């Protein structure tokens, strides 16, 4: 079998046993890897309706065929389990070097069962898995653990996935980190790993990934190098995702003041937290204009180099390069959501989150929720322990963040995430920005209307990386012009030929949402980066994704096959949520978005209309082949994606 190692490691933490499964190729063809494979193990090994922190929650880290090949955008790994945040499926991807190194160490996936009584860490060195005591690592920050393990195992080249202190303390939005700056961030996977007392997974190996067609992989790699400049991806790499801050401000789509506005109050405040400012002033090497060499980092074999490396300080606190720099999402949640225009403070907040291991989206959004509660007198200084938690107060934001990360004082309440915090306090629900208990990411459905549909219906809560965004289907951007390549090239092969304005949510736009959701769903299964193979970020596109999968495995693979893989994963997620008791009623948007219009900027006066959303859901469920009343997959649809056994399990 090409592309894969053919081995899956099962770790039972309850009795500290290890078992290696060697599934037949047919299993890999059916469940591919990444998210789809993780879902399979979750379904098969975890009973229905358990608590997410129950030891029987099965946590899988899974790769697919392309991971470890010498081409951009393939070092991705999906973690899957039941989510403590949503009560449905937890699913999150991370890049870096860890995913490729796991393949080199000899495994396609690690399936973690049970829970240990005492802290442990797992190492897999050249095909040899081993559990170790981790008492000495418990309570340490991520970089400290990185350094300790490299010294302990006498190898600076090991790659480490780990929970931070917030994962140990079961924070609702705890992440799993690698390199101390890459995160399996969303859906609370760090809390699940913490509940199992698994502190870290160390991987290192020298096994080569055998592609079915090595020459074709190298040709694809060369093509990427040639296209880097003309595709615009060189500039994306230069400013990273942070480069989109001003575009959001200009379009009225920069969520500000806990989503009361789509713009920062002044242009200067938005400029102060922009990707350009980050590049000019905070990236390592900025003082000598060597940011492109010193201030950018990458994932295994990727030429885009979009990750930020910072070197500066905030109020005498050093901004440490190893903790990386903020992505757009982090700049928004700790910046514009909180009304904070101090980019050094935002960068320090990012560092603290990486040091303790939390999702910067949910954590920042939880603090902005608390700020709106404070501004409106719902919580007071008595609640916050004297902290004046007003919008724009960077010192207060950092102080409250530290309390949250350590679960001290009011921070212990906020570590539950905003939805559970509101329940615990019995107030503040009107300011929540959560879907299925998870905080909204930083793209606004007011100006990207199909995103509202995906935020409402996505199985693991509101997510901005589960479908493409409306502007790419704008008639002007779809077609392109000299000097600006159009998105048609990548969208037409998906059957998307009816471009629409971003503020429209009609049947054509629902088709756009669903079909691009299949593509993104496939990327998370095939384990490739959406910024490199997605339908809008254009170093490669969906056809290249299909080609890469074929080059890696030798299996015939077309764009239609890619779409079917994505469709199958989406159906299995949705079916899992049905098994756990979620229904169409859970597919909605925060009341705030449905009842309050935005103020200021290009989105002034815009509110999401509930009727429009419900109509779109009807159309979406119909196009997906799901039941209109429950929103769950039907037997016919499950059978169409080779998941008849799931229909059997659900009693359909």
């Amino acid at each position, binding site marked *: 079998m090409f592309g894969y190692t053919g081995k899956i490691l099962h770790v039972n933490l309850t009795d500290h046993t290890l078992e290696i499964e060697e599934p037949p190729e047919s299993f890999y063809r059916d469940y591919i890897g990444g998210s789809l494979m993780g879902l399979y193990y979750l379904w098969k090994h975890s009973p229905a309706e358990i608590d997410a922190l129950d030891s029987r929650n099965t946590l899988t880290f899974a790769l697919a065929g392309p991971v470890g090949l010498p081409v951009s955008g393939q070092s991705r790994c999906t973690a899957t389990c039941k989510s403590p945040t949503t009560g449905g499926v937890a699913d999150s991807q991370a890049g870096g070097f860890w995913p490729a190194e796991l393949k080199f160490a000899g495994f396609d996936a690690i399936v973690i069962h049970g829970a240990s009584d005492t802290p442990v860490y797992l190492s897999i060195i050249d095909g040899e898995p081993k559990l170790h005591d981790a008492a000495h690592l418990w309570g340490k920050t991520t970089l400290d653990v990185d350094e300790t393990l490299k010294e302990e195992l006498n190898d600076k080249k090991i790659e480490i996935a780990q929970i931070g202190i917030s994962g140990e303390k079961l924070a609702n939005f705890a992440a799993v980190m690698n390199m101390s700056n890459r995160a399996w961030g969303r859906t609370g996977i760090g809390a699940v790993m913490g509940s199992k007392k698994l502190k870290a997974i160390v991987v290192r190996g020298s096994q080569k990934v055998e592609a079915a067609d090595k020459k074709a992989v190298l040709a694809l790699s060369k093509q990427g190098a040639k296209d880097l400049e003309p595709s*615009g991806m060189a*500039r*994306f790499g*230069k*400013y990273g*995702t942070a*480069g*989109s*801050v*001003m*575009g*959001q*401000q*200009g*379009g*009225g*789509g920069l969520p500000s003041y806990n989503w009361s506005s789509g713009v920062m109050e002044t*242009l200067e405040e938005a400029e102060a937290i*922009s*990707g*350009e400012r980050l590049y*000019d002033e905070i990236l390592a090497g900025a003082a000598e204009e060597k940011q492109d060499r010193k201030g950018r980092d990458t994932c295994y074999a990727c030429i885009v180099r979009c990750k930020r490396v910072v070197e500066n300080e905030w109020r005498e606190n050093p901004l440490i390069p190893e903790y990386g720099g903020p*992505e*757009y*999402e982090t700049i928004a949640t700790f910046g514009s959501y909180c009304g904070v225009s101090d980019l050094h403070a935002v960068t320090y907040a990012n560092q603290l989150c990486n040091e303790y291991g939390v999702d910067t989206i949910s954590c920042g959004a939880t603090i902005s929720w608390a700020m709106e509660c404070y501004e409106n007198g719902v919580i007071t200084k008595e609640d916050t322990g004297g902290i004046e938690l007003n919008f724009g107060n960077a010192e207060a934001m950092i102080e409250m963040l530290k309390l949250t990360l350590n679960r001290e004082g009011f921070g212990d309440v906020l570590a539950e995430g905003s939805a559970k915090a509101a329940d615990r306090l019995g107030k503040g629900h009107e300011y929540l920005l959560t879907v299925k208990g998870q905080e909204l990411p930083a*793209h606004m459905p007011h100006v990207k209307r199909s995103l509202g549909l995906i935020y409402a219906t996505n199985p693991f809560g509101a997510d*901005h*990386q589960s479908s*493409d*965004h409306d*502007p*790419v289907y*704008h008639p*002007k*951007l779809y077609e392109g*012009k*000299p*000097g*600006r390549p159009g998105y048609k090239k990548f969208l037409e092969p998906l059957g998307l030929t009816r471009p629409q304005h*971003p503020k429209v949510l009609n049947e054509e736009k629902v088709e756009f949402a669903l079909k691009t959701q299949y593509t993104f769903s496939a990327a998370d299964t095939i384990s490739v980066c*959406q*910024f490199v193979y*997605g339908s*809008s*970020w254009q170093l490669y596109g969906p056809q290249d994704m299909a080609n890469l999968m074929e080059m890696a495995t030798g299996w015939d693979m077309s764009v239609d096959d890619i779409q079917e893989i994505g469709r199958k994963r989406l159906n299995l997620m949705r079916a899992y949520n049905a098994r756990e008791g979620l229904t169409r009623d859970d597919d909605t948007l925060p009341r705030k978005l449905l009842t309050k219009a935005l103020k200021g*900027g*290009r989105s002034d006066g815009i509110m999401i209309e509930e009727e429009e959303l419900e109509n779109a859901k009807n159309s979406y469920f119909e196009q997906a082949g799901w039941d209109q009343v429950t929103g769950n997959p039907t037997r016919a649809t499950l059978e169409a994606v080779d998941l008849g056994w799931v229909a059997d399990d659900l009693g359909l």
Partner: protein
Amino acid sequence: MRAWQAKPLQKLMQITIRLYGSLRDILPSENKGQTRLDLPAGSTVGDALKKVGLPDDGYYTAVNGENIDQNSRPLEDGDYVLVFAPAAGG
């Protein structure tokens, strides 16, 4: 002998344009995304975009702090034009 006839001098105006995000790299890096442009009187926002080498539509633009929807809007001497690229995911 034909009398020499002077061509009427073309009236010019000067505006400032600021390009955000990765658009700023269209200009030399020392400009940090901002430059002054000399344009014929009566030029539009779209003309200014073309002058810096961008397509004349498909961006969010603002003139003197006011968002505008039509890039056919005429400019005046001293105007300050902002150009933002729509953001996809990330």
